């Protein structure tokens, strides 16, 4: 399946059953509390039973994924970052070597073609940091391949439409 995970509402001409759009800003998702329950008490399940538990299985399942996030100081802004932190149940506590570095073992997570659209008034320095961050995420979030695209807020919708249209092709 294809997944579009956005930190804001976007009108998209999607009439494709294999693509799902999730607007995180409309969901109730609280912070990860770092309890390690999803690793050591209820493996694969978060102990906080809010809307995040409906989202991370879809992240795991998706082969193609588009993240749409505001960028703040070169980091994901807090709506997207909260969801990424709450996706910890899709990894195990156990560590493996991946490309010579230590990383957590993934559970049933499909390898992904990922696109990350960062939007906002983003300086060159923030863009560079954000690209480095996504490169780090690639190892921890099962990205087989990824692209990072930057957009101003006022052209975001068109940027997203262009990206999703290219999927159809």
């Amino acid at each position: 399946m294809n997944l579009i995970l956005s930190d804001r509402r976007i009108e998209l001409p999607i009439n494709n059953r294999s693509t799902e759009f999730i607007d995180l800003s409309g969901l109730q998702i609280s912070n990860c509390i770092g309890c390690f329950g999803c690793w050591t008490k209820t493996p694969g399940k978060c102990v906080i039973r809010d809307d995040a538990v409906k989202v991370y299985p879809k992240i795991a399942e998706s082969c193609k994924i588009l993240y749409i996030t505001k960028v703040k100081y070169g980091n994901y802004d807090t709506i997207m970052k909260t969801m990424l932190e709450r996706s910890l149940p899709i990894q195990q506590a156990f560590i493996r070597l991946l490309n010579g570095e230590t990383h957590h073992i993934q559970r049933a997570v499909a390898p992904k073609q990922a696109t990350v659209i960062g939007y906002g008034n983003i300086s060159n320095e923030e863009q560079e940091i954000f690209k480095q961050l996504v490169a780090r995420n690639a190892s921890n979030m099962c990205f087989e391949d990824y692209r990072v695209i930057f957009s101003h807020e006022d052209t975001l919708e068109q940027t997203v439409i262009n990206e999703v249209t290219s999927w159809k092709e």
Partner: protein
Amino acid sequence: MEGIMIINGSPRAPKSNSKKYAELFAKYCTVPSEYFAITNKNHLELCRKMENYTHILFVFPLYVDGLPVTLMNFLKTLEEQSPKTKLQVSVLVNCGFIEPEQNNVAVKILQCFCKKQGYPFGSVLRIGSGEAILNTPLKIFAIWKIKQLATSVAKGKNRNLKTTMPLPKKIFIRASTNYWENYGKRNGITPAQMATMGIEEGSV
């Protein structure tokens, strides 16, 4: 007054490793320091208290290769409620992986905040194997670097420090597996259960 405000950005502050690192820092620092943990409700209070200090030490764990949301939310408030005099900011970040370099991007994010908001940047300590190192005899390596960080911050220097367990990666992975298996065992969970590939299966 010269003093260091130690701010814990871990979402599990009372039980966090960051708290233990902060305590060690305070123990070895020659300048007076005071410890605070970020909560959902104390952002404004912490911003106001900054007027009483000359330095901030942010102590936090690496979350998804960057700053935890707890700290990001606080920085957003600090952007709006900045103290009149900008304090020097130093960082003590830890990750569970053996490579302290996996913390580099998080440090850059905080440096970016400081640059944009006009806070002079001080020293950094990046800790690898940070989940477990204090529970092992290898904690001496962490303590040694924390002492160096404390001296650097007290003197207003700009040092870039790192430390980790001095182990081959394969041995680290074996030790880490034991650590997590014992963690699960205390909760009545077997290694096989912890290693399930299932997501959102079974009962909570």
